[in-house]
């Protein structure tokens, strides 16, 4: 084999080749608005991606409307009311367990574990019942601006993660620069990425690096020198975690310790942040003139990189996560809309989710469901609650507010392995089997034409699977319900709620075994 043969082999690996893999079914739609009135299957598709799946009632209410109207409604407004607090524990503050006796320390850690379970269960419940797309968008951000509950041998205190959740939720469709500022000075984040230890003369580069690499730009757009300078800009901010620590801004709120801030001039991305004198080394001034300035410099000096980076991240989360199939033209158009709107996130999400590209048949059913999309989605779609939903997520490698590392969940095919796939199947079976006879009978009656078994089966398949199935497959599913009887006997079977429930449970189990049940 000569070198040229070898090289042509390498391209087959799809590694150096930057063009998307050639498929016989290309995505023809671009960033332009999808203007056709939405069909039922369009609505199902939209709701699977922007949220955790439609309920039957919700889907019906959107049929015939335009994508623009529906997406506007689902994205909600910036001033969406905050959910009711998960409990009084969110305002409980402890002593520093490091200094406490062994028993107290154990009790504090234990309490944090309990609180984390409460917080996650509370949030999953909000996701399940969310009439809009508020929680799914917040989940996107929670996996982007990560703050792990447990890392190394440390904890992010759930009380601080609760506050971070509220902050991300309020910024979810706002100004990206404001969001970046609030995250940078977020109490949980300052602890998680070592910002609280980043002092003048003793820099800790951890957050400064990740802000550029993982949160805003991606590698290749800054130098190692920029990492060091960003760390200097960010010196002096402290997290507030324990009762014995200063809390000038109140408990669980970060604060500024002037003596730990590096007041010298900084050179960042070719821009100068001037030195400051002791009398203007204040929380307000440093926040606005240095921290916010650092973020503005990123968006000013690297607008293309920043907009493409975030557009790509959003595309992978909401449209298609395969790294080799991110459509560069669509991304460029999306990024440009985002830039032109001065990094208004609502424009980014709305442009993406109302585009012809998004509604193109070629991308339907291509997305691998994340564990929470599977767990929350099935609970929501079957109207059935599993109180262990948080635990199921953990078994499937998605622990809410506790990503495997600072880069978040790796996504795409990493979600499905011989470790997690059996758990997915087990969850779905158990949830279906836990449905009472009366719940299954209600479920049947949510669909139009439920007395016609072929129509009912088609409706349920459309509801739970992401793409149309072949006639043979549909026949097979019909057979799992009627089990050899003629189809006209279905109304009779319906007259016996126990039998009807057993048959439809069979259908649901059968659908949940299909590979495309894991897709959306």
């Amino acid at each position, binding site marked *: 084999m000569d070198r040229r043969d*070898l090289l042509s082999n390498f391209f087959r690996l799809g*590694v150096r080749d930057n063009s998307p893999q050639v498929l016989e079914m290309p995505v023809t739609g671009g960033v332009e608005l999808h203007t056709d009135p939405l069909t039922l299957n369009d609505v199902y598709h939209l709701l699977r991606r922007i949220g955790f799946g439609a309920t039957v009632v919700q889907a019906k209410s959107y049929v015939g409307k335009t994508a623009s109207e529906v997406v506007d409604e689902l994205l909600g407004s910036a001033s969406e009311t905050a959910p009711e607090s998960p409990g009084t524990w969110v305002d409980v503050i402890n002593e520093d367990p490091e200094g406490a006796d062994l028993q107290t320390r154990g009790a504090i850690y234990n309490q944090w574990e309990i609180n984390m379970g409460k917080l996650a269960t509370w949030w999953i419940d909000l996701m399940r019942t969310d009439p809009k797309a508020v929680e799914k968008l917040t989940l996107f951000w929670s996996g982007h601006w990560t703050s792990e509950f447990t890392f190394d041998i440390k904890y992010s205190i759930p009380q601080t993660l609760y506050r971070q959740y509220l902050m991300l939720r309020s910024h979810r469709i706002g100004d990206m620069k404001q969001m970046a500022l609030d995250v940078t000075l977020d109490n949980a984040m300052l602890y998680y990425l070592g910002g609280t230890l980043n002092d003048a003369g003793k820099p800790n580069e951890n957050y400064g690096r990740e802000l550029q690499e993982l949160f805003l730009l991606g590698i290749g757009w800054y130098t190692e020198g920029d990492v060091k300078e960003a760390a200097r800009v960010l010196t002096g901010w402290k997290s507030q975690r324990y009762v014995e620590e200063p809390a000038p801004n109140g408990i669980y709120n970060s604060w500024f310790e002037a003596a730990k801030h590096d007041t010298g001039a900084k050179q960042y991305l070719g821009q100068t942040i001037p030195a400051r004198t002791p009398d203007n080394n204040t929380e307000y001034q440093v926040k606005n003139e240095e921290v916010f300035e650092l973020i503005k410099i990123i968006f000013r000096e690297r607008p293309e990189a920043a907009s493409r980076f975030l557009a790509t991240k959003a595309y992978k989360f909401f449209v298609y996560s395969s790294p080799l199939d991110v459509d560069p033209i669509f991304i460029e158009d999306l990024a440009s809309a985002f830039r032109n709107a001065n990094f208004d996130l609502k424009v980014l999400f709305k442009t993406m989710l109302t585009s012809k590209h998004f509604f193109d048949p*070629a991308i339907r059913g291509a997305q691998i469901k994340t564990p929470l999309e599977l767990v929350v989605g099935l609970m929501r779609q079957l109207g059935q609650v599993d109180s262990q939903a948080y635990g199921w997520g953990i078994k499937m490698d998605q622990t809410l507010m506790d990503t495997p590392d600072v880069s978040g969940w790796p996504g795409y095919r990493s979600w499905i392995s011989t470790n997690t796939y*059996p758990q997915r199947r087990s969850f779905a079976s158990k949830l279906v089997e836990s449905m009472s006879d009366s719940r299954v009978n209600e479920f049947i009656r949510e669909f139009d034409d439920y007395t016609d078994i072929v129509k009912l089966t088609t409706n349920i398949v459309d509801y739970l699977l992401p793409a149309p199935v072949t006639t043979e497959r549909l026949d097979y599913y019909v057979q799992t319900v009627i089990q050899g009887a003629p189809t006209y006997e279905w109304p009779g079977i319906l007259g016996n709620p126990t039998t009807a429930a057993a048959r439809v449970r069979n259908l649901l189990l059968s659908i949940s075994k299909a590979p495309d049940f894991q897709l959306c």
Partner: protein
Amino acid sequence: MKRRNFIATTTAAAVGTNILGGVRLKAFNPDHLMNIQADDDRILIVIQMFGGNDGLNTIIPVDASEYYDFRPNIAVKKSSAVNVLSQIYMHPALDTPKYPSAYNLRRMMEDGRLAIVQGVGYENPNLSHFRSTDIWLSGFNTSDPEARLVNGWLGRFWSEKIQGFPQSLPAHPTAVQIGGSLSMLLRSPKGDVGIALTDPNKFFELGQGLSPDLDPMPEDTRYGREFNFVRLVAEQSDLYSSVVKQAYDAGRNMISYPDNAFVRQMQLVARLISGGLKSKVFLVYMNGFDTHVQQQNSDESGLHPYLLESLSAGVGAFMQDALQQGFADRVVGMTVSEFGRRPFENGSNGTDHGASSVQFVWGNKVRAGVYGTTPDLVNLNSNGDLRYQWDFRRVYADVMEYWFGGTPEETETVLQERVLPLGVLQRPTSVDDAFSGRFRVGIKAFPNPFSTSTTLEWMQESPASVTIDLYSTAGRFVETIYAGSVQPGLVRIPIVPSASGAYICNVSVNGINNPVSLQCLR
């Protein structure tokens, strides 16, 4: 003692004399022949140390005053570092003080079962955990940040080796990862060559009967491709859950392992091998090496020492178990970590992301010893980080060619680049070699160093096909000097490198590597 046998000595790089084929035959003692037949059972264990292991606090440069200047709070004192065979100083945690009687990396080094590769890294080091991990696992060193790295060197290697993959699956999983989502290392363009599992009993309980009752779909849509991906995992879950369970039930551990999360993974691997699982690769994972904060306390305890102790105890216990059960000759292991740390400590008693680091390669079939010199703490790179001495893929080339019986062409296909094996693993010798003159020859280069040209000279016993290539000292291909055949007799070939520099000149004689160091000073 076994390691000191004739074959081991004759495959050493330092051989300087011609040895006749007939003499060699004495080397084929029955013990060795058994190993040859067992080639098919060879196993690699990869230990991934995520976060970037601090090489300078692993193998301690006790004689470099700069080390103590750079790290006033977290340097390991010479008095507490463990001197092994008068060659290196290990972090005391590697001597597993918590488990004083345990077999560990220090003892393995003394017994000739450990190779320590200092200065492993690559050109233009990337200090991102994720990008650098991807570079390590994919085996592609690309400085193009847009290049997408989506599969691993072991995935690509094995997906080509397995007959009929993925249309038909081998009876046993080719690779097994303990815990977590399946690593990029085991992914290939044809699909995953491995499975991930945490608990064999649970896997069995949940995996049974998961084969989908639907055929694969056409691959011409995104939906069809992802459908088939999920379908393959479902099939693997069903098929391999019972294979793994059988091996787990039939297998055993013959020693008692220290109780530690990492060690338990090694214990599970030993049990699966013992029970007859025919997997080629096992991947185990350690997290926590991203030691930005409080990596070590003043008494040299703390997070990083804990991790080193876990590593040493886990590898040692596994090795002891393997020796007792008789499968030690079939296993080699290697550590990988995306980078080392900065030479300087930071302000938080930790260290930030750095460049080159240290790698362990272990097993009965390694050529034990220390590769590379103590890291140079004076001549740092432009970012103030340690320079690398060896390209990280050299050990991969050893694994593919010397351990799994691949060819240099396969290595080149997998790595998209010619990479010379480091020679850290013993090359398997087969009976065929003895009759085809496939043995190392003693090669002299004179003059060396030289300014314009040097001449290679050796005695060739039989006609041979010869290729002479120059590589950088780190092991990356530079240029081909000669390719052709030679006749028996004294062979003399002049070498004129295109540029001044230090080189490894590899003389491949009938496919056997004979590396010679050359220095061209112009």
